[in-house]
């Protein structure tokens, strides 16, 4: 097991380093002059040249990358020249809020999707299954922004029972202190995620239901509830565990839309604005953090699967 973990950790580190190289080259390679992008089309050529010189953009890409890497090893992700703050501070300010929103939505989605998927598998082709299938297909095929706008239209502008924007507090724990203000953003992210997870869960549960060990368990006289909770659930959840690991970047991307529509500044929006402003240090910092989270998410998923099914450790 330890060897497995070490092997996966080493692979993860290489992936993160590779992402940093590729992102750095892509961002800097496609840009003729970051100074021009930052200072605008009407800035003088002298100002642009001075800006590029001050930030080292007049040096070779090779030198720039290794300077960046050197700072990175000291934990310095750079300084945003648009937001006038260190990237570390910006990520720290926004990460908690994003993590809280995504985390709550994720937990809710799992809590809803797992029993929902199992229920649909057990009640395959029933009215309930068909209704739920229809609803999840609609939610699954619906763009996040559309679901968000519909919820705002109905609950905020129409019925007026919930605010149209998320809480404006800068607290990380705003979900708990102002749950009413956070209901629509959480509902949007949860809705989209449930639709995805429940489909996978239903499919995985159907596969397991057809397995011999389920029949044996039933033949031994075990109640359906015990069969489901003791035998089916653990095995049917394995594909979902992998999926959850892979969903972390999707959740971050989903957050961008939710943050944008519900006026909830977080990591996704920080990245989006940095992209518009060509704020390279923020773009690099975010990409690196997102890559690390994705790799860690996958690693965690692999570990959970390995614990659940030791055969995978040999793979």
């Amino acid at each position: 097991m330890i060897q497995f973990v070490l092997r996966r950790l080493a692979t993860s580190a290489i992936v993160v380093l590779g992402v940093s190289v590729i992102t750095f080259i892509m961002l800097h390679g496609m840009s003729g002059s970051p100074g021009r992008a930052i200072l605008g089309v009407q800035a003088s050529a002298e100002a642009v040249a001075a800006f590029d010189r001050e930030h080292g953009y007049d040096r070779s890409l090779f030198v720039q990358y290794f300077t960046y890497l050197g700072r990175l090893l000291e934990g310095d992700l750079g300084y945003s020249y648009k937001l006038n703050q260190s990237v570390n501070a910006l990520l720290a300010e926004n990460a908690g809020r994003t993590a809280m929103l995504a985390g709550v939505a994720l937990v809710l989605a799992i809590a809803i999707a797992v029993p929902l998927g199992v229920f649909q598998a057990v009640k395959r082709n029933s009215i309930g299954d068909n209704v739920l299938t229809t609803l999840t297909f609609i939610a699954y095929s619906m763009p996040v922004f559309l679901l968000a706008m519909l919820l705002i239209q109905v609950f905020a502008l129409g019925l007026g029972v919930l605010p149209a924007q998320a809480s404006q507090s800068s607290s990380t724990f705003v979900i708990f202190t102002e749950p009413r203000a956070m209901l629509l953003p959480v509902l949007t992210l949860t809705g989209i995620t449930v639709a995805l997870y429940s489909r996978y869960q239903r499919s995985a549960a159907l596969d397991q239901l057809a397995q011999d060990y389920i029949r044996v368990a039933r033949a031994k006289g075990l109640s359906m509830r015990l069969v489901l909770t003791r035998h089916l659930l653990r095995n049917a959840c394995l594909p979902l565990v992998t999926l959850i690991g892979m969903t972390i970047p999707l959740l971050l991307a989903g957050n961008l839309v939710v943050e944008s529509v519900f006026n909830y500044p977080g990591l996704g929006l920080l990245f989006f604005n940095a992209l518009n402003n060509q704020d390279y240090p923020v773009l690099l910092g975010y990409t690196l953090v997102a890559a690390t989270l994705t790799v860690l998410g996958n690693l965690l998923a692999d570990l959970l699967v390995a614990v659940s099914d030791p055969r995978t450790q040999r793979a």
Partner: protein
Amino acid sequence: MSGVRGRRALIAATLATLLPLAACSGGSGSGGAEGTGGDQAARKSGSQTFGELPAESGTPKDGGTIDIAQQPGAGPYYMLPIVPGAFNSTYVTYQFQRLMYRPLYWFPEGASPKVNPALSLAEPPEFSDGNKTVTIKLKPGYSWSDGSPVEAGDVVFFIDLLKAALRKNAANWGGYTPGQFPDNVTSAKATSADTVTLKLEEAYNPEWFTADELTSVVPLPAKQWARASAGGPILDASEPKNAEAIYTFLDKASRDPAGFATNPLWQTVNGPYRLSAFDVTTNFYAMSANEAYSGPQKPRIKTLNFRPFTSETAKFNQLLSGNLTMATVDQGHVGQVKALKAAGYHVYGAPRLGFNFIMLNFKDTTDNVDKILGQRYVRQALQHLIDQPGYIASKGMYNGAAAESYGTAPASSPYAPKNVATAPYPYDPAAARKLLEDHGWKVVPNGATTCERPGTGPSECGEGIPQGQTIRFNLFYRSEPQLHSAVSTAFSSEARKLGIEIAVAPKTFSFLIQNYNVPAAPSKAGEWAMSTWGGFSTTPYPTMTGTFDSKGSGNVGAYNDPETDELIRASVHGEDRQAVQAEMERLRTELPVLWLPTAHTIWAWKDTLSGPQETFAALPTTVLTPEYWYLR
């Protein structure tokens, strides 16, 4: 049987789910349609304003709080009123700093983008010595919030500090153009407590120097800020070494947003408001009234909350919910203006101070593009293919929220010639065709128009254009918003009908300005013939020095016209205060670019907020004067 039941259930479930969606989308759609129809009167095609300004109403009273929306992603990130290019925007200078630090010369005056003597800290400047000496006399009675008067030394302190900033790095001031202010000031002296004398390197047009250069000067509290460290001694900023140390200290404090509202430095103000809160995470900030404000109108509203927004959609939803006192309305929501009015908002817009265009590249030698665009009649023909009134009326383009414009400033500018909103070459494909045929081209509609009569005579194609030459351009447009795509495609389609091929392709704004911008990337000059990304902002006195003069550092398309050079020189260095009008007229007809409509900048504010009409008329220039406003 169960299968049938299942299918019925499926259909029922589908309908149950779709009905509310249909209701929602239907509601929004009809709202939008009603809004569009209902505001026709307010949005006549090409109208110079969007809607009408409401008359001042109610009895002015003190107190209250208003909530103003920040522009998404445009929070203020710098305090010192010498804003580096990276942080510079009208939102930072006009909507943030100006409320705390008043410029020496204020603009606009109502809707007119000109110097406003009533709100300026100084009397109009006097020019002497053949316009090489400027004497500025400060008005009596203006003071800092600590009670000390605003003095000539504060003006000179700003200039000393600005020079120190630029010595360190040319990017340290967003308003810097090499050779212009402060490079052109050889000496700045406080000759008395209320008089500043500037010696200039050469003679300048007084109107230009006042409206475009002196409006950038912001007196700073020398007796408080001329230090190299917190609590350090007051230094003589006229010594360059001291000025650099002071700038370094103030710049560092300006790079600490967490301290914006708490650092005692920034509490000394001479504007009607001072910063009282700043949230680094959300970028929310609040300003409270400066009770010691010594300007013509003491602030009535006690607190201004500037609410941050992540998107135009989020901002508009808050407007509709009635949770904002005022905000801008972007082009994407123009169709829902009626809903805003129903929610109790006044809505008004006008063109910003600037102009929009399709940039032409006179240096692109690919397939003789430079030779073809160099012919004035070709540019005229191309302008004839642009249907500004049609673009403005189109729901897919400006949706009624723009003004016709054929010059470098809006019609509201006191410097603009009267015909600036009159098309020199109106939409007329037949006229365009005639122009080409009269100059030796065989026009093949939807085919390839070719030059039949090469040569330089009046009825020939022009210098450098060989027989058989076709007219082919590429046009790169900004990929968002969708407006640029719609305009470019319409233009290309019209050109195609005359046998002119314009291949359109989207690029990001960042890519366009980094790559298809001659001064920035001359090596790419052969890659683009036309580009459109929006437009330029202009200064109150709208000369195009640096932009359309042949040696201008920002002459993106390398336009070269000796007569324009002369007119620009007269605008900047001549005696005639209205010289810029002749320059604008020349550019209007010579077409260094192809003119596009100028979109309205639209504001919505609650009908419970009122004040003098002219203070709301100034909103499209993004300048706020909330000290005049009150809640009814």
